[in-house]
């Protein structure tokens, strides 16, 4: 894949062209003006450009230049926006006891992570599919279909995988790469059409949709598997929870509509299992073998 290189080549052009389009954009609309609190930078602060427009464009510009420019405040802003988009894809599950359980479980796992003090927020989406998502700043969502098919250690393994995506800032990396490529395209289009109101906020929305429909870098998925397994073990769970889930995924046909998105956005389950086997060996076997706890059983306890 040479997408990253391609993106880098285009980034320069994007930076030049963006200044021509910034003034025509109205970013305060599509995402509820969430970005208005971000301090505008100077790159696109042209005379006559609307201040919030500069702010939004600036954030994308920062992402495109380097993820290192995104501090935790900005990371949380980006995360809130992406989480808001994800929450627009499916409704929340109405079982508040289940929501609280997943938050306690997830918060416990997150406490053993490299970033225990983020405002970790977990939720169950009311959907029969089998999937999990994360957004920067500590948002982790799982589908009800997934929760119904796993035990507690397996759910902990999945949450630990998603938590690792957050602590390693994988989404920001991916968004940065997409911003580099996408900004160039968008800027060219805007210039040709010359009058595209709302393009910047729409662009963030579009980048987010693109991100969650296409998935993260494969090496990031393998890293999240590897670190997720260790993280779940640190929280006192059976480290084989995540591998067991991958074995479930392995049995699903790629065109089973309950699994399509998970399978299309991740490396093949058997490949992930082989990577985990290499990393785990028998290192964590001393922590394994705890009796499985059904989630329904845990919910009845409370």
């Amino acid at each position, binding site marked *: 894949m040479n997408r990253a290189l391609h993106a880098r080549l285009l980034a320069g052009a994007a930076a030049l062209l963006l200044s021509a389009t910034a003034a025509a954009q109205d970013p305060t609309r599509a995402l509820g003006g969430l970005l208005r609190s971000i301090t505008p930078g100077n790159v696109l602060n042209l005379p006559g450009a609307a201040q919030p427009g500069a702010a939004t464009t600036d954030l994308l510009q920062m992402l495109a230049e380097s993820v290192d420019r995104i501090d935790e405040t900005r990371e949380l802003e980006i995360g809130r926006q992406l989480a808001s988009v994800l929450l627009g894809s499916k409704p929340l599950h109405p079982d508040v006891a289940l929501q609280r359980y997943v938050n306690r479980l997830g918060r416990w796992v997150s406490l053993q992570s490299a970033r225990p003090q983020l405002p970790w927020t977990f939720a169950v989406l009311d959907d029969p599919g089998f999937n999990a998502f994360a957004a920067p700043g500590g948002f982790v969502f799982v589908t009800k279909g997934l929760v119904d098919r796993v035990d507690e250690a397996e759910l902990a393994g999945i949450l630990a995988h998603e938590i690792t995506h957050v602590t390693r800032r994988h989404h920001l990396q991916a968004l940065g790469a997409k911003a580099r490529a996408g900004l160039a395209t968008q800027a060219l289009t805007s210039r040709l059409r010359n009058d595209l109101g709302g393009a910047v906020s729409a662009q963030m929305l579009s980048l987010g949709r693109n991100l969650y429909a296409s998935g993260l870098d494969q090496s990031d998925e393998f890293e999240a598997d590897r670190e997720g397994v260790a993280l779940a073990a640190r929280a*006192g769970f059976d480290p084989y929870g995540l591998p067991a889930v991958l074995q479930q995924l392995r049995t699903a046909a790629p065109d089973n509509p309950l*699994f399509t998105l998970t399978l299309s956005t991740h490396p093949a389950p058997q*490949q992930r299992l082989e990577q985990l086997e290499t990393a785990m060996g028998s290192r964590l076997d001393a922590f394994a073998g705890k009796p499985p706890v059904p989630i329904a059983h845990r919910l009845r306890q409370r």
Partner: protein
Amino acid sequence: MIRTALTRAPAALLLLFSLASLPAPALADEPVLTRRALELRDGAGDGARSLAALPARAALTRLDGRQGAWVQVRTAAGATGWVHMFDLAPASGAGSDNSAGSSATGALRGVTGLFGGGGVRQAGTTAGIRGLGAEDIANAQPNPRALEQVAGWRQGEGDARAFAQQSGLQPVTVEPLPAPARAASRTGGGDPAGREMP
């Protein structure tokens, strides 16, 4: 979707459709093959009594039971016992096609024709039910109200610690797992450049 379906063997599609009326995805009873010669054991662990010696590429059925790394299987002869989950590969060969790293898996590819190459056995597609898909993401509009709602469900550190205590969960020290020295060599289709692992 369509592209995926077109890449699949016609026989697999026929099988898929014939299974389409199953009520729910059955995630056990997976046809699997042993990746190496191993012992079938009567319990979860290397210390458990050996029931039988199985050769590499022995056809087994994965059952529901799991205890840690060990899963329950049934042999073609009908014996039931336990093997380590990493010693099993899907009989369909699904997911292994990009992996050049495992000679065992490579050898298994010879038998994929039998199952049509795609986890067909477990299709279990419930007609009319689909999960959150790319089109839901593509059409998603920001939902600030739901965002507010989930923020209200957030649990504090104290709640989490109380949960762990009630659940008998103790934090333990676990060293990070080593990153594979040449992770990219087995990622097939991925970005071999990747990022440097620390």
